[in-house]
């Protein structure tokens, strides 16, 4: 299925959970925060939260800033 991931259209496995998506992307869950359709998905919901076609997903981390 196609989703918008960090602003870009991308194909990801159907029926992915947030946890599954992070695994698919090779991203360590401890170091990121995830937002789906403008709502934060907390870490305790990564296994339960299913991603649907067309969802807008943001995966963020801390970078240097003032």
């Amino acid at each position, binding site marked *: 299925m196609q989703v918008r991931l*960090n602003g870009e259209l991308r194909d990801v496995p159907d029926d992915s959970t947030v946890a599954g998506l992070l695994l698919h992307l090779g*991203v360590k869950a401890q*170091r990121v925060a995830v937002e789906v359709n403008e709502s934060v998905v907390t870490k305790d919901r990564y296994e339960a939260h299913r991603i649907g076609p067309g969802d807008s997903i943001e995966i963020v981390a*801390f*970078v*240097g*800033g*003032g």
Partner: protein
Amino acid sequence: MADGWSIGEHRFTSRLLVGTGKYPDFPTMQRALVASGAEVVTVAVRRLDLSKTGPASLLEWIPKGMKLLPNTAACFTADEAIRTARLGRELEMGDLVKLEVIGDRRTLFPDVEGLVEASKVLVKEGFTVLPYTNDDPVTAKKLEDAGCAAVMPLGAPIGSGLGIRNPYNLRIIMETVKIPVLVDAGVGTASDAAVAMELGAVAVLMNTAIAEAKDPVLMAEAMKAAIEAGRKAYLAGRIPMKLHAAASSPMSGLIGS
């Protein structure tokens, strides 16, 4: 330490808060952070670069025990800032946020209307909100009324190094609000930091002045000393300014008189 300060539930000794952007490399940043003696460091929230593998390395270079203060830098609407603050909280698992809602790309001056709006929402959600704001006492009061834990007026535009451009407004802000006033942005060199502290600022937040100095580690040391000197001078109470001289040596008992 007797001369500590606090924001919300958080208690600090150092009155210097530093950023983590613009350093030539992470090892230099780490040495500068240590040299600054800061207990709070700001960080930004950005999209993870999915083309790169491996963990984001910034956090590994921030000395253990330093409190992270996520910011909402480069957010131009209240909504963007609110979403970024929520993501920052999820990353940090803390309640502190340096709230920025920017109104103009060239000056990076705050959009104070959006700032007050975002503050109200985030305070309701349990955030300890530290808003980066203009040197405007009326806005500072609105932010206090919105429930912000502190207010952080600018000394000059972000990264400009112009120093403390409106000390009188900063003083009026300090008179106007009861919450801590931190001077955020504009510091160029150590004397600017000292001036902010002499005015009565609770603390100073800076990034570029240290990160882009020729020797960031030495500048971090200078800033630490300046913050301490300015604070002591503020507590000691400066003498009033006089137009004419007031002799330091006795004017009587001179030879040949």
